[in-house]
């Protein structure tokens, strides 16, 4: 089991969700986040003040998957979130010690298998 955390562009989110759905990755959590990944900062002006937006809006996806789904999930995100410009985001793959589904108390593999 792995926890896959992906940071992607907000405007790419619907494509990523569509790709994950097609890859039969069904359970995920998303959150709006901000970060900096080396992209050119956008300059904005409010009345007299010029500001550089050091943090860019991103979307973070957290997906707990069983081992056979790790590469499938990564491929789906790579395909759908890619633009080729700086700022496309990152995918982190983390080991998971334990997963428990709250509703049933299922653990580990049973907990990351989609409920029927």
């Amino acid at each position, binding site marked *: 089991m792995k926890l896959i955390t992906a940071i992607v562009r907000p405007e790419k989110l*619907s494509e990523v969700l569509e790709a994950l759905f097609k890859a039969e990755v069904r359970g995920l959590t998303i959150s709006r986040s901000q970060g*900096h*990944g*080396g992209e050119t900062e956008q*300059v904005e002006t409010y009345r007299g*003040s010029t500001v550089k937006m050091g*943090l860019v809006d991103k979307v973070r996806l957290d997906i707990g998957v069983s081992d056979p789904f790790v590469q499938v999930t990564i491929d789906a995100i790579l395909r759908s979130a890619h633009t080729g410009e700086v700022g496309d985001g990152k995918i982190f793959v983390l080991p998971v010690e334990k997963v428990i589904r709250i509703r049933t108390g299922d653990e580990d593999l049973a907990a990351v298998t989609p409920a029927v």
Partner: protein
Amino acid sequence: MPTPPPLPAINGADTAWMMVATALVLLMTPALAFFYGGLVRAKNALNTMMMSFAALGAVGLAWALAGYSLAFGDGGPLLGGTRHLFLRGVGLEAHGTLPHLLFMSYQGTFAVITAALISGAIVERMRFGPYLAFITLWSLAVYAPVCHWVWGGGWLGNLGAIDFAGGTVVHVNAGAAALVAAAVLGPRRDYGRQALLPHNVPFVLLGAALLWFGWFGFNAGSALAANATAGLAFTNTLLAPVATLAVWMALDRFRTRKTTAVGAATGIVVGLVAITPAAGFIGPMSAIVLGAVAAFPSYYAILYRSRTRLDDSLDVTAAHGVGGLVGALLTGVLASAVWGGKNGLLTGDPAQLGRQAAAVGATLLYSGAASFALLKLIGAVVPLRAERRQEALGLDVPQHGEEAYTSGEGAILVLPDLAAAAPTAMALAAGIASSQAAAGLAAEMPAGSGA
């Protein structure tokens, strides 16, 4: 400074009312900004609202410099003259019972909102500069002539077509331009692939409320006097949208079992559009009938349009084009000399319906063709559409350098003397040193970038 002696023909009550009416119509353009702004996605909120606000500057100026003369200066049946260019000869003298300047101002607020209405068809994808060029040229090449045809002594007015406050001049005119603009620009890239949802429905309701409020100046002001006809137009501006709203809500409930807020706001606008050409010509019960009937074509036009590839994003054609067309034709049916206007189909003059249809048809054709030519002309010089990346990012930041809803987090103030000196990464690290993000960022920075 001695006050000039009062000019005899100017009426104080009329002047007082028309100053209020002018301010009311002016308010409709910011109201439209809220109506349209609420309907788009958050990343395009400012761009969409600025499309209305900017019309105040661009079209307002064009109106004073040339538009007024082209619409109301003496001329032929097709176009006004050059007599009032740069407001020459527009002074304190009486125009009807109003100071001439006030009449010019009042008409100017109509030119502004008419041009701004078109923006609803091309939001979330058109570049701002070409948009400004388009509405400015459009106000001179399309609005001014059509306004002249109907109100300035041109051929449609002489033919006997009646348009109390602009069903044809404003709404059919803007609706035709919107249809063409949506087709020339092409659909948004996400259109038909993603759900494109309104980001702020309360804004839409606020916009509809302010539009209704301002519309009392639009319709009752079109009497150009504080008299009984103004009172009639005022009453009809209350009653027709009331009926449209009631029918619209019923249609919504019938179709989806829910009364939607966006639907209610749209219904109000459609009712206001439909009563505009008839406001001072029909009785109050006729206004209720007109408002109720007008709900149907626009309601189903919106449903139909959203299933096509025509991305008239905020349904300008269905609300203003179709609503204005229905209103202008029903004016020819319901108009009654008893209420101070002319007779229509039901009151013994079936030919009036033909005259109304001629006015609508001529406006549709001219506005459609001229808008197409203008867009192609501008498009030949500069691209009309934002780049794919800008469209994905939303137009607020690329086109205006601002966001509608900023958290302010991670924003670094650029001081004029430091801007050139400090390396970006250092400024960034300094700016957010206190935040938890700093540790993560430091890890991502290439070694030595701050040195």
